[in-house]
């Protein structure tokens, strides 16, 4: 086993962009993403990376410039976080609908107001329906590996959609872990030299992204829908190819740990899944039948695979670090949807918390397990619990009950 180097997830992503021999990077600074573009700027300034690095004047322009570069057939990359991702929103739809195979690292951070630079998933989840594929890294190694895989997934002719690699702000972005940086020759064998996009050939002029009638518009959307569906198989395939070439399982749609015989299964995105893994190992050591599923691909959503994995489970605790106000935990809702129509299905509990950098740690997880136990014993329990919320100033409890 190759020994790793001590680095943050932001450095890991910058190394991935360098190894992928990205041609164009257009970006704008925002905490906690900034260390990615600083590292890339340094690689370029030191002649270690040949990319055209452009620091633009806004995130809207960062994504727009990345889209334009990709439309001209080069490999393009950008990175952002939180408010920056929200400011990109118009171009988020544009990138997916224009079918440009760009890759973006999103360092997950809370959105304002109130202002908070720490981690949660509201930024990424708010972009759920833009058409981007979204992967979630559990570790710094995943941040590097998933970024490399993201290029291959995005550029696959069956997919040709942009891919966002999510890494939790501070928990990953500012925390050092051992990361294995692959040999460039291995990456060159894993990735094509350049994406096969060639739309702006002056010899064969085309008009791209023009105006269409209603009858044609839905055709474009249907093609996009099919591509996102096909990505399910491609993500598995690329994850397998990556594991074969680099000897690490850091891709695919889902990662299951101790799920087969589990009575209670936690489902989570990103670094929270990694924390739950260590809790599961501790619970198993005292004889608890608990498992965890890390949802590595949030879009496309592997609903069928998830339902299959949860077939023998009695209680599922879905942890959301984002919320759909007036509705519920987004991931919890999607897990329920995946289970709909099955003859036997587990009770789904929606755990909400870890907002703005609040912990999803042993304290919260032990409480969640007690809650799941109560549900398993068929005691009446609430289907949704917010963790870490104090009583309001007027003495009311947060759930209004």
């Amino acid at each position, binding site marked *: 086993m190759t020994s790793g180097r001590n680095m943050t997830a932001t450095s890991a992503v910058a190394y991935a962009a360098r190894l992928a021999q990205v041609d164009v990077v257009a970006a704008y600074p925002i905490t906690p993403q900034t260390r990615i573009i600083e590292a890339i700027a340094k690689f370029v300034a030191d002649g270690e990376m040949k990319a055209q690095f452009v620091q633009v004047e806004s995130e809207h322009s960062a994504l727009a410039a990345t889209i334009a570069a*990709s439309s*001209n057939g*080069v490999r393009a990359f950008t990175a952002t976080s939180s408010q920056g991702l929200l400011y990109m929103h118009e171009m988020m739809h544009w990138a997916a609908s224009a079918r440009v195979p760009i890759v973006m690292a999103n360092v997950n951070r809370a959105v304002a107001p109130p202002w908070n630079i720490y981690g949660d998933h509201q930024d990424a989840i708010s972009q759920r329906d833009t058409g981007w594929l979204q992967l979630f890294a559990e570790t710094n190694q995943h941040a590097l590996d998933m970024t490399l895989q993201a290029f291959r997934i995005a550029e696959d002719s069956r997919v040709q959609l942009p891919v966002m690699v999510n890494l939790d702000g501070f928990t990953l972005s500012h925390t050092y872990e051992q990361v294995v940086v692959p040999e460039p020759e291995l990456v060159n064998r894993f990735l094509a030299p350049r994406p096969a996009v060639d739309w702006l050939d002056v010899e064969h002029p085309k*008009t791209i992204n*023009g105006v269409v009638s209603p009858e044609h518009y839905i055709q474009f959307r249907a093609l996009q829908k099919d591509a996102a569906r096909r990505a399910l198989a491609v993500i598995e395939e690329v994850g397998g190819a990556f594991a074969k070439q680099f000897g690490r399982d850091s891709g695919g749609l889902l990662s299951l740990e101790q799920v087969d015989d589990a009575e209670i299964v936690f489902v989570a995105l990103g670094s929270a899944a990694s924390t739950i893994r260590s809790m599961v190992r501790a619970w198993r050591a005292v004889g608890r039948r608990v498992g965890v599923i890390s949802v590595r691909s949030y879009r496309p959503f592997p609903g069928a695979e998830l339902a299959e994995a949860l077939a023998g489970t009695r209680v599922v605790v879905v942890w959301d670090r984002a919320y759909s106000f007036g509705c519920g935990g987004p991931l919890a809702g999607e897990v329920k949807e995946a289970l709909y129509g099955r003859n036997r299905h587990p009770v789904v509990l929606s755990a909400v918390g870890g907002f703005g950098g609040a912990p999803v740690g042993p304290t919260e997880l032990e409480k969640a397990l007690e809650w799941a136990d109560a549900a398993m014993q068929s005691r009446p329990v609430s289907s949704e619990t917010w963790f870490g919320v104090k009583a309001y100033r007027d003495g009311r409890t947060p759930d209004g009950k």
Partner: protein
Amino acid sequence: MASKETPLVMSGNSSCAGCGAILIARLVTEAIGPNQIMVIPACCMGAVATSFPKATFNVPVLRTAFASTASFLTGLEASVKAKGQDVTLVGFAGDGATVDIGLAALSGAIERGHSFVYICYDNEGYMNTGFQRSGSTPPGAQTSTTPGGALGRYKMEPRKDIAKIIAAHGIPYLATASPAYPADLKRKVEKAVDVKGPTFLHIMSPCPLGWGFPSASTVQLARIAVESGLWKLYELDHGVLRLSLSPKKRKPVREFFAPQSRFAHLADGTYQALQDEIDAEWAIIEKEGFSLRCETSRA
């Protein structure tokens, strides 16, 4: 690549009769030739010239969102450098996309020094969406969001002088032009193509529907704008500013305003006030020479 005989602007467009913008598009693309990639945002040209399954331009066109002409040019320039391509990058945008929603992106792209030719065809409002005011609408104009009404709420504010804003960036080449002076316009475009770095052309684009004048009068009205001294033709070439044309005997500004229904509410006395302003401005130019000083702008 389109051969010399093939027109670069083809018949597959749905521009209005007498559209100034499509005329400008033809002059600009002809001056640049087939080796170009055009970026067109949301604007009249985006609507009339990119309607699937028709295509207007015989050069590659990349449509973009309203605010993103200059950021698309930025990304394209980076990709062109990465690939070692030799191609002219052209932004073709209306005044709304340039002076309003796209100004930050344009300012950033010019400051960073990317190479492109940015054409702002200025029809003085959001004509594609039904003649709303823009930052480039002249004072006094009736638009669909400055309708006048019982309270007389017309466009009251002076227009942004986009050319001065762009000049303040220290841009290598900037020029104003008019479709009534096609040779001057094409010469300026050709010059811009040869410049390394950002270039900007501000071109008056009369709009028969939005301004309310007969569609046969587009070129005539553009010419009167120059001959009356209202629309100044000039260029700022690597710091050297010069007027391209100095009307010897200026036509009355009334000849520009009177045929347009958007100014129909103006009282006779207003024309004299407008004439006095223009006369005062040209008196300074004739005495001290043409400058882009802000204090010479009409308020």
